[in-house]
């Protein structure tokens, strides 16, 4: 007859749950709390002096298991170099429909040029719109193609549906929205140093 006590216990548990805060994140209204190593849309980073890190070596394309990356390299003009090396990527395209967001391109990159970013709202209508070129992935570009198109249409800022506790240092120059207050107690408040990366 402990079953009746168990029934009462069950009622107590649900009553406690009734007055607890829902765990649901109302995503389009409130930002999703991403992990700092989330694999989102790729970012082509730059050196602090403004030169692109990518040297057009195609190692990322070789490492890509989904054959999603296409790179064409060209010689740098010594007077006005695009990248920090001898060559630069004149064409750098990633097909976001093929990409499996595994991050092997980032692992393969010798200069740390291609880094997995945070944008994940990539849904679009046309096949051609899923092929992201340099102009869609360089650090100064905000958001994904459909987001930018919508921002242009409405005249409003790109609304990013995520927030982060901190940004990992590989994503040089990327400034995503940060969480006001980290959910769990962070080991250190300024966790954006070297040891937080790899």
């Amino acid at each position, binding site marked *: 007859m*402990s079953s009746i006590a168990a029934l009462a216990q069950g009622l107590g548990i*649900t009553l406690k*749950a*009734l007055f607890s*805060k829902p765990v649901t994140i*109302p995503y389009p209204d409130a930002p999703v709390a991403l992990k700092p190593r989330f694999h989102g849309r790729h970012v082509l980073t730059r050196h602090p002096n403004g030169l692109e890190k990518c040297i057009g070596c195609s190692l990322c394309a070789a490492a890509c298991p989904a054959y999603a990356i296409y790179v064409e390299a060209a010689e740098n003009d010594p007077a006005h170099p695009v990248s920090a090396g001898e060559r630069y990527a004149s064409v750098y395209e990633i097909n976001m429909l093929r990409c499996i967001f595994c991050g092997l391109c980032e692992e393969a990159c010798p200069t740390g040029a291609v880094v997995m970013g945070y944008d994940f709202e990539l849904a679009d209508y046309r096949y051609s719109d899923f092929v992201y070129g340099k102009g869609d992935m360089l650090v100064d570009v905000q958001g994904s193609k459909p987001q930018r198109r919508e921002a242009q249409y409405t005249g409003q800022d790109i609304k990013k549906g995520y927030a982060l506790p901190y940004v990992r240092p590989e994503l040089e120059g990327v400034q995503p929205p940060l969480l006001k207050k980290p959910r769990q107690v962070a080991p250190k408040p300024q966790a954006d140093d070297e040891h937080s990366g790899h």
Partner: protein
Amino acid sequence: MKPLCCAEGRGLKAESYSLLSRPLLFALGSLPFLGLGMAQNASAPDNTTDPLWMVGIKAFLVVFGLLTAFAYMTLIERRLLARIQIRQGPNRVGPDGLLQPVADAIKSILKEDIVPKAADKVVFWLAPMISVTFALLTFGLIPFGPKHAFFGFDPWLINLDVGILYVFAVSEIAVYGIFLAGWASNSKYSLLGSLRSSAALISYELALGMSLLAPVVLVGSLNLQAIVEWQNTNGWLILYLLPAFALFVIAGMAEAARTPFDLPEAEQELVGGYNTEYSSIKWALFQMAEYIHLITASALIPTIFLGGWRMPGFLTAIPFIGGFFALPYLWMFAKIALFLFFFIWVRGTFFRLRYDQLMRFGWGRLLPMALGWFLIVAAVVAFKMPLAVLGWLSALALIVFSVYVVMGARSSQPARRVVRPGVGD
């Protein structure tokens, strides 16, 4: 009816004699579901009844109110269940999801209405109508306040001397809706669902009626207003008839096909129960009937056991609160809301009983307990013992039950650890 007569013979209060003069004849002479029409003749003898146009307005209000309450009960229930499951629930339509019932209504009306080819068309159409009509018929009986409290008119629709009988007769006919739906669908799943649900409903109807015999015998009247009045003079019936109250709440849950007993629409095991073949607005009508049964049950329980529309007696002694919060509607709505919340809470907590468990619980536990308690009450009434005896018996039942539960919990706790070591949990 034999014990009823004895109890009536005892005649608790002078006023109840006049109320008792007619109910037996009335119950025999009229089919209870004709009650709407008969209501005018059957009012309490000491006063006039409302004019017919006012009855019409009130009937409209009751139906309108019940349908609105049904619509928003679905929203409230979904929100509360969601919060119990630490979710948020529907909050997209309108401000904070408040227009969700409107969207649901539009959706269910505009959906394609499919009638199976082999179905019995007439009965197939008739079944949801029967269900919802006889669900709606009961609520007009509930008194919401003293006489002339509704703009000078009576805050109830019908005042029947056979009130409780009428409630049972009408709510029992709702089983026809379920059964006809299953039969007319010409589908084995529907038929199975309707068979087991009508069997379950009829089984629990016994315990339901038996548990209500106790208050009827004690009060000496089937009239709901007489019961409320009796509670005003003698105190709430829950104080005297706690076991009957508990049994009635449980059986009422089964009667409204709520979760521990919701075999009629056990969608995980039957395809959908008796309404498998139904879609669109006809399906919505069945849902409507179920929720209206629930609302009626949670209005009937406080009317019979918790003092009806009156505020708790001890509150009237407090000067400010007693004067200000004595509004009858307020207390009735508060009590209905309380029980609706309780039913949702139970639904969010418990799992469904298996069919054999359901039957064993209904016939093996509820019915004997209701019968036993009824015999005790009948004995107390027959031997003209004071009311306090019943109060003490109720308290004793509560104590025995609590001790039983606590002892059971204590004795089983170590056993669970010893018997199953390393089984992994």
